[in-house]
């Protein structure tokens, strides 16, 4: 019931009456190991409307990344359903989901021997583009394009550089649904303000929805909706102005209080 109320309020404040970009229905994910099976996600229900910026937060190990991977198709749910623009994509491959408009920026960017930054941006855009066009994406994430465009996406780049290139490739995709898994991880404090700017710009320019996993208050601050995931469950979701003050005033952010409340 809480969930429906949230939807209602969001729609009141945002001038759209369009569809829902993404819908998760009763998504559960279990892994089995030596010590029996473990539930990583339990009965997740989520509705992400068109053009909505949603931030997912919560303690480490709570299942946030798994949730994002589930949407991108990197992990398959044990049960439940995933709808993209009303279409069931639960059993679709990563490629098909990407082609249907899901973009996913990894928490830990992948390294490639021999593949250059330019190659990656070209693949992301999906067609050929000039070096100067590709450079614009790099400039947007605060990298001096000239220095990076022909570099290989390998171990010679630092964690922060790789991370920014990862975000640049996501921008290049300009997908209807962009997912970012902790984009702030590994980014130095000085560049952080620019990063927030990147997402603000994205929100203005992009016609689509953004789902961003983050621990950073300043990123949560620019979201429309904030979602708190603890121990594989959504324990709180609502408009930023409602959820954020609760989160920040709580001594154990996203921790037991919500969990107990739910129980």
């Amino acid at each position, binding site marked *: 019931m809480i969930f429906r109320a949230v939807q209602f309020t969001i729609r009141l404040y945002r001038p759209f009456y369009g569809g829902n970009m993404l819908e998760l229905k009763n998504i559960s994910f279990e892994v089995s190991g030596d010590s029996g099976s473990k539930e990583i996600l339990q009965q997740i229900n989520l509705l992400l409307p068109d053009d909505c910026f949603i931030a997912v937060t919560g303690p480490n190990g709570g299942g946030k990344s798994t949730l994002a991977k589930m949407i*991108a*198709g*990197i992990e398959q749910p044990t049960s439940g359903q995933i709808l993209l623009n009303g279409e069931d994509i639960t059993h679709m*491959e*990563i*490629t098909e989901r*990407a*082609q249907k408009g*899901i*973009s*996913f920026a*990894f928490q830990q960017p*992948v390294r*490639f*021997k*021999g*593949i*250059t930054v330019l*190659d*990656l941006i070209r*693949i*992301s855009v*999906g067609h050929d583009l000039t070096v100067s066009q590709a450079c614009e994406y790099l400039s947007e994430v605060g990298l001096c394009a000239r220095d990076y465009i022909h570099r290989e996406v390998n171990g010679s780049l630092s964690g922060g550089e790789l991370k920014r290139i990862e975000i640049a*490739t996501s921008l290049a*995709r300009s997908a209807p649904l962009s997912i970012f898994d902790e984009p702030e991880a590994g980014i130095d404090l000085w560049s952080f303000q620019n990063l927030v700017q990147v997402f603000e710009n994205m929100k203005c320019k992009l016609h689509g929805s953004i789902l961003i996993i983050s621990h950073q208050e300043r990123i949560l601050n620019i979201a429309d909706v904030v979602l708190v995931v603890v121990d594989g469950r959504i324990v709180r979701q609502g408009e930023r102005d409602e959820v954020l003050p609760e989160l920040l005033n709580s001594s154990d952010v996203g921790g037991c209080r919500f969990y107990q409340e739910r129980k």
Partner: protein
Amino acid sequence: MDLIQKKLLEAVAGLHEIPTGAFNIRSNGKSVERRTTEHIDILSKEDGSGIDIRVKPEVRGESVHIPVIISQSGLSEAVYNNFYIGENADVTIIAGCGIHNGGTKASQHDGIHRFFLAPGARVRYIEKHYGSGDGMGKRIMNPQTIVHIAENGYMEMETVQIKGVDSTERLTTADLDAGATLVVTERLLTHGCQSAKSTFEVALNGEGAGTHIISRSVAKEHSKQLFISRVNGNAPCSGHTECDAIIMDEASVRAVPEIAANCTDAALIHEAAIGKIAGEQIVKLMSLGLTEQQAEEQIISGFLK
């Protein structure tokens, strides 16, 4: 020259037309076209077993193309080419061999290239191997490169064998005087039941001599590869050898790096890594919209670039 020969020529030398600079085109066992320049001379050996290429001292920015193409099934040849590079010359040499075998008999080209670099000479040597044709006859290439680099000479060698060569045994040996440098990058892809063996033996004999040997290879299907590198540091010098291989399907790859230091100031490093394509690389490219197969091709072509 017929269409098949033209295609081979394009594959191994990137040539559509007659190149600029000096060249010698060998087709089906004979020199068919040649041009010398004021600074670069090409002479046939008297017994017809190859050519001598002489670059005058201080010549800069010129190039020599010496492609070999074989389109006649069952032809087997050994060719001895010598390159004499004058003092302080700086040239690019593009060699390469393409075999089209549409028949049932094996075609074989063994190119033995000797390089003599005078003090201060610089050479960029590019060698491409390519095979085509749907006949049962094998396409075999066994190149040997023997390099002597005098003081402060520099040689960069790029070898590429990406397609269609059934069997190859490559041997590269080099000796380097003081201040001389040899940089080798090898790119190799084998598939089907192909086999490839590549051996490097480098002697660093003078103070300040240095070498980098980098081999990147991909072995697919049932192919087999063997990579051997031996670097001997006989003086204060630096040597680095690196073998990096991607293995797929039922293929096998062996890497045998060896370094020997005979001087306390010889700094030698070897690295060797063999593994399959990392799953996360495929996943990442799929998440950008490529299919699994396209992702694999992209990773391999990048790796072999």
